[in-house]
């Protein structure tokens, strides 16, 4: 490795792939960056490393920097999301007893219909449904909240969303501490492998184009090292493009499987990359193309409207004023910095920085300042539309 040293924190998840590939396949070196990756045991650790300056950049749950901007979760430094690293990539699973119950009611585990699965879930709960998510500020928490909230307005009383670290998810399910979970891969598939649960839905069935992880930096560092930051964005973008090519999935799985990264079997990682899942211990297979997206459809563009959607959800639960929270949130997704880094690379850049979320029902070409941008469907399962209002 040569070039300017840049430390980046990540959690062992399939969607840390762009950072790992950028380091392993030389995309970072091409930008003059010696990328020093550090595996963290928890999201609070990554966030603290970033705010304390122990790392310059981090693979972070999209809602974490938004929560920081809203002052949730303690005082921290100002964080900026300079690109979206991955879209979708989470799964919802249920315990085996609950799966049995759902099957008895006639649910077919089609791994695609969020409305049917959600209604079956709500209908089969005896008391409050306990659902594990990896972090209080996570897309998993937001997606589950939106999903059950849309189907059952009394959800807050009927479901308890609690934090369970991903490596402990299968254990918590087997021990009966939770009835269901929403978690990033490979942890859902690992729960299936351990015989603790069955997969019910991909997160994308709730929102078809949900920003999942972002590349986050400290605002202070961002202003002090603009060239390094721009280089990192381009390196991660190129890694995402490489990852989106199907013929690279086997190689990517092998790299991610290494002990210093995910430290798990490459076959399990390959399931998420190819969208081919084994949903139960009986070996039932389901295919969900585009399960996780690292590149296509302008996946890396940090839409201010995505941040506003997250801000609205966080504000609702924390009891903060909605409008102010949305305004603070959209300032966190730095589409301006992403544009600066990607200018002149040929990457597709939209003319707008915000869109109406949930309105794209089929591939849609949109006005671009460069390249040719085709947005992918971004429907919410309940057909809801999120209009962030005038922004730019």
């Amino acid at each position, binding site marked *: 490795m040569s070039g300017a040293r840049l430390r980046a924190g990540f959690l062992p998840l399939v969607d840390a792939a762009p950072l790992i590939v950028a380091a392993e396949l030389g995309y970072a070196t091409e930008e003059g960056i010696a990328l020093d990756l550090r595996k963290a*045991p*928890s*999201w*609070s*650790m990554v966030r*603290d*490393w970033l*705010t*304390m300056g*122990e790392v310059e950049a981090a693979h972070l749950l999209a809602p974490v920097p938004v929560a920081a901007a809203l002052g*949730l*979760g*303690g*005082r*921290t430094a100002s964080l900026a999301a300079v690109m979206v690293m991955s879209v979708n990539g989470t799964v919802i699973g249920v315990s085996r007893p609950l799966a049995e119950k759902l099957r008895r009611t006639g649910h077919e585990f089609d791994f695609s219909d969020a409305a049917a699965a959600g209604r079956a879930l709500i209908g089969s709960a005896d008391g409050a449904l306990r659902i594990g998510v*990896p*972090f*209080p*500020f996570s897309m998993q928490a937001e997606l589950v909240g939106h999903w059950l909230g849309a189907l059952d307005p009394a959800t807050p009383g009927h479901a308890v969303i*609690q*934090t*369970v*670290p*991903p*490596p*402990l998810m299968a254990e*918590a399910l087997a*021990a009966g*501490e939770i009835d269901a979970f929403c978690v990033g891969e490979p942890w859902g598939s690992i729960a299936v492998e351990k015989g603790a649960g069955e997969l019910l839905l991909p997160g994308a069935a709730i929102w078809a184009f949900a920003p999942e992880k972002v590349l986050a930096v400290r605002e202070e560092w961002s202003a002090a090292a603009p060239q390094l930051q721009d280089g990192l964005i381009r390196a991660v973008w190129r890694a995402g493009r490489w990852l989106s090519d199907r013929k690279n999935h086997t190689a990517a799985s092998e790299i991610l499987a290494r002990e210093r990264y995910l430290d798990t079997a490459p076959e399990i990682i390959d399931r998420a990359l190819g969208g081919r899942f084994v949903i139960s211990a009986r070996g039932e297979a389901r295919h969900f193309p585009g399960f996780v997206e690292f590149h296509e459809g302008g996946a890396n563009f940090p839409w201010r409207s995505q941040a506003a959607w997250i801000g609205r959800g966080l504000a609702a*639960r*924390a*009891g903060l004023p909605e409008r102010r929270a949305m305004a603070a949130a959209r300032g966190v997704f730095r589409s301006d910095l992403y544009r600066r880094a990607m200018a002149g690379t040929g990457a597709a850049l939209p003319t707008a920085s915000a869109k109406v979320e949930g309105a794209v029902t089929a591939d849609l070409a949109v006005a671009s300042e460069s390249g040719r941008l085709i947005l992918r469907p971004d429907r919410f399962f309940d057909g809801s539309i999120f209009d962030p209002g005038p922004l730019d």
Partner: protein
Amino acid sequence: MTKRLKIVVVEKDPERARMIVDGLLELGDHSIHVIAEETALARKVAERSPDIVLIDLANPSRDMLEELALATSPLERPVAMFVDRSDHQLTRAAIEAGVSAYVVGGLQRERLRPVLDAAVARFHMFRRMRAELAATKRALEERKTIDRAKGILMKARGIDEAAAYTLLRKAAMDQGRKLSEVAAAIVTASELLS
């Protein structure tokens, strides 16, 4: 006289937990409770309503404590945060030592500081002890392997111990490998061949 502090230590390893508790007790008559079981951690911590929670930074269960930061109801008292971010030096020392402190409510820094300092010191001490133990164990293992390799060579080539050792050392130097690695290779090969 200042009031007793309620301190919760989240630690699975009983030996390490004991060291930390001993270190904290030297500070004064605080009420210290160790939680070794990580299931439903947030609830168990909240039940104790501590002033300070200490947890290993490497513990993934730390994320469960973040839920405490969200508790907004006054009944659920804790407003937790990761040490006191305003004291950069203290935070850095804690991060380096691998300890994380969640401070509940408005505990003043003067009261937190000695507790955290003691915890940091104990974490350092424990890590040193572990490293020393591991090094001693490794040295012992290596010596045993070298002894076995020497024995194999002596028997196979009909040489004495000094000659066998010289042979091993020469092979290691020629190949640019550690003596213990060459010895391990001989032991493995001999096991496979016999």
